[in-house]
């Protein structure tokens, strides 16, 4: 599995994606001196590096999550030269501030894309294809069974569901992970239906994001001071881990919905015992994954997480030089959110 060719600009090591020439790592999973970070999710942006480099809009959340770290920022599209290797960050469309990191040396160009999606979600900086020789990609939803609908259709479904719950006097309880999905859902909600309440983990991130000048609909943090009846007919936005927690119990009667790419599968929907599954993902679906790879014009593709083995086989059949690499990225996890376990344990559980 491990990808090692002697002249590779970027190599997969035990600590992360390594550029020996520049002495930096991209999204390393073990502590290193210099880390270039694609985005703030916990499997890409880890604790313990001596210095961090991320986009200007990704940095506030990374700082908030990792505490006292040494972090520098860079604007999208701007180049930085490290030991002769030219690096630049380009929008990945995954969440606010997410980037594909381009590395170029003597005409050999690599792009490490982190997590990405092509659909412009109206809140993250929209994906831009970057031409390269080698493209490092995720494949979280890299099977032909995943085919996303335009997000407006999903938002219409969510609002419709909220409306009918409100009419029945029920609390609408919807989950999405707290960095990215939560803000995307917020942006799509029809605030004329009712009030939006948030779990602490979500609201903490909202505050960080509002402080960097991004406007989000008005939300109220769930707290013990709020009388339980105030939630009636309104909406509660929470991370997936809150489902069936003691915290959830106060909202009743309620209808539970989950927003996740995994909701495309009936088995996953039924297992979570949610009344509604909304197929909404911040990762590319099958079509867009293939489109993205085509547009890079890369002749070589390295698949880091998701259905790596299967998708690599497929790319090989398409005539590309493809291989799977072992990493510790998790993408969007199906059962609980590995990507933000820290967040949830930190959150107030009142």
């Amino acid at each position, binding site marked *: 599995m491990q990808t090692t060719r002697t002249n590779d600009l970027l190599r997969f090591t035990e600590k992360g994606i390594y550029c020996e020439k520049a002495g930096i790592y991209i999204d390393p999973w073990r502590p290193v001196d210099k880390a270039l970070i694609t985005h703030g999710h916990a499997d890409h942006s880890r604790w313990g590096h001596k210095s961090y480099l991320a986009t200007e809009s990704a940095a506030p959340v990374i700082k908030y999550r990792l505490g006292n770290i040494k972090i520098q920022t860079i604007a999208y599209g701007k180049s930085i030269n490290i030991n002769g290797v030219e690096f630049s960050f380009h929008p990945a469309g995954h969440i606010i501030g997410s980037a594909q990191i381009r590395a170029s040396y003597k005409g050999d160009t690599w792009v490490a894309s982190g997590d990405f999606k092509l659909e412009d979600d109206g809140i993250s900086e929209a994906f831009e294809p970057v031409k390269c020789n080698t493209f490092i990609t995720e494949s979280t939803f890299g*099977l*032909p069974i*995943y085919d996303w609908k335009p997000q407006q259709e999903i938002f219409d479904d969510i609002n419709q569901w909220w409306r009918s719950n409100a009419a029945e006097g029920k609390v609408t309880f919807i989950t999405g992970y707290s960095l990215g999905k939560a803000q995307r859902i917020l942006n799509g909600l029809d605030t004329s239906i009712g009030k939006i309440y948030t779990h602490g983990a979500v609201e903490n991130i909202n505050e960080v994001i509002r402080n960097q000048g991004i406007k989000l609909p008005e939300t109220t943090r769930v707290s013990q001071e709020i009388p339980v009846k105030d939630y009636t007919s309104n909406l509660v936005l929470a991370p997936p881990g809150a489902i069936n927690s003691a915290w959830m119990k106060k909202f009743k009667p309620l209808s539970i919905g989950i927003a996740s790419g995994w909701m495309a599968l*009936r*088995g996953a929907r*039924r*297992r979570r015992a949610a009344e509604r599954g909304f197929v909404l993902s911040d990762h590319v679906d099958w079509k867009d994954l293939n489109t993205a790879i085509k547009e890079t014009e890369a002749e070589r593709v390295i698949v880091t997480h998701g259905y790596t083995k299967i998708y690599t*086989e*497929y790319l090989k*059949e398409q005539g590309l030089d493809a291989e799977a690499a072992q990493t510790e990225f998790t993408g969007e996890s199906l059962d609980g959110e590995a990507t933000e376990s820290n967040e949830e344990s930190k959150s107030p559980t009142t």
Partner: protein
Amino acid sequence: MKRFAQLFNQLDQTTKTLKKVEYLVAYLREASDKDKLWTIAILSHRRPKRTVKTSLMRVWASELAQVPLWLFEESYHVVGDLAETIALVLPPPSQQHTKTLTEWIDIIKSLDKQEEDYKKKVVLEAWSGLDYNERFVFNKLITGGFRIGVSQKLIMRAVAQYEEQEESAMAHRLMGNWTPDTISYEELIRSENPLDDISRPYPFYLAYAVESETSQLGDVSEWQLERKWDGIRGQVIVRDNEIFVWSRGEELVTDKFPEYHPLAELLPNGTVLDGEILPFEDGMPLSFNILQTRIGRKNLTKKILQSAPIVLMCYDLLEYNGEDIRSQPLVDRRKLLEQLLEAHPTNGICLLSERVDVNDWKEAAKERAKSRSLLSEGLMIKRLDSEYKIGRKKGDWWKWKVDPLTIDAVMLYAQSGHGRRANLFTDYTFAVWDGDQLVPFTKAYSGLTDKEFNQITAWVRKNTKEKFGPVRSVNPELVFEIAFEGINESKRHKSGISLRFPRMLRWRKDKPVKEANTLADLKKMLDLYG
């Protein structure tokens, strides 16, 4: 079809039975009689005959989706449901069909014995005009297996509510041998005399396991105790000089048990017996394994019949002299049963399930403890004044099984489940020690909570040694306590044994792998209980 697909979706999205009944009733109000009948049929596992091979559907779907077949198969492994996988990969529809459920079923039925090209044309044409939900349902109609958590009881309740009739009467009407081809909705549900179909069985009354101390059940003298036998629960019907044998799974199995055929003459018309189809010889029951050797066979040769002799161990009498006596108390039904068998000797085909008479629950416990040596599963405890109810009901009938045998075993392989459990590793292969080797001896896939399955799934992903299609070999680190009801010698298994009803009792997080049981331990059990 749109409405039926909507119903399917509604039923699928809720776990609340009240809601399900509500959706079903709403559907029945809107659907035509023909669609109603097919809906009832499908939800009670009477789907149309399969006319298209699933292997062909896989090929067509992957062609249409422009996906290589191997990739389609990999996707199927992930989804765990063929009908769903096909619906997911197909390109969006190019037109809109408006046919009804019955019309689509007629089309599917008309494909029988047609050329492959013709079948393909029809199926592709169908796919091109159905949306995601309709495609899924259409594929399910062809591939079968509508598992959507709707029990027979729920359908019956919904139909009864819609028709404003008694549930028990409706349950009886929905039993038996009918298909939408042989009967109309009007005839099935509303005809004056539902007994027109002489083969129609009564719904089985099933017992729950004893929940607490038996002393909680009150005075033992109010109860009838019997042995619980390990065969196939069955209903034998003699009407109009004909005999019908039904299994508990509502399958007509008359042909599989020719030994019972003389009963058509030996017993009076209008007799329905509830009993156990039990392998039996020389006054003793035989192991269930013996019965298994003949269940799947198409041709029952003399040799097989000889090596697997059966009797009908009679528990109860449901119809006597053509009269439904299910509402009479057990004690009276029992008297009639005894009289009947006495007045009509059956040359040993029918045996009376004997009462186990005890003075108190302590004695009952002693009797229960004898079960394994009698090849019995435990005791049945039935209230003397109980009527014969429908389905699984608490209160009057209890089963008090012997404690299962258990063994601690090591997980060697894991495989993901299907349907609700797709994407979760839920099916495991277990091994015991033979020297320093681990010998696989059983599979098990139930007994753990969803939470435990989630944890183990995450563990399997991290501890996979090799992948073989959907199966993964894992590091031998996890120990489980496996419970089972019986143990038998088996030439088909490497370990030389086979277990009956193996399941996981608990995850032994406390137990080191080295301390799991050995093959010698299993062999000892085989000697004792095999």
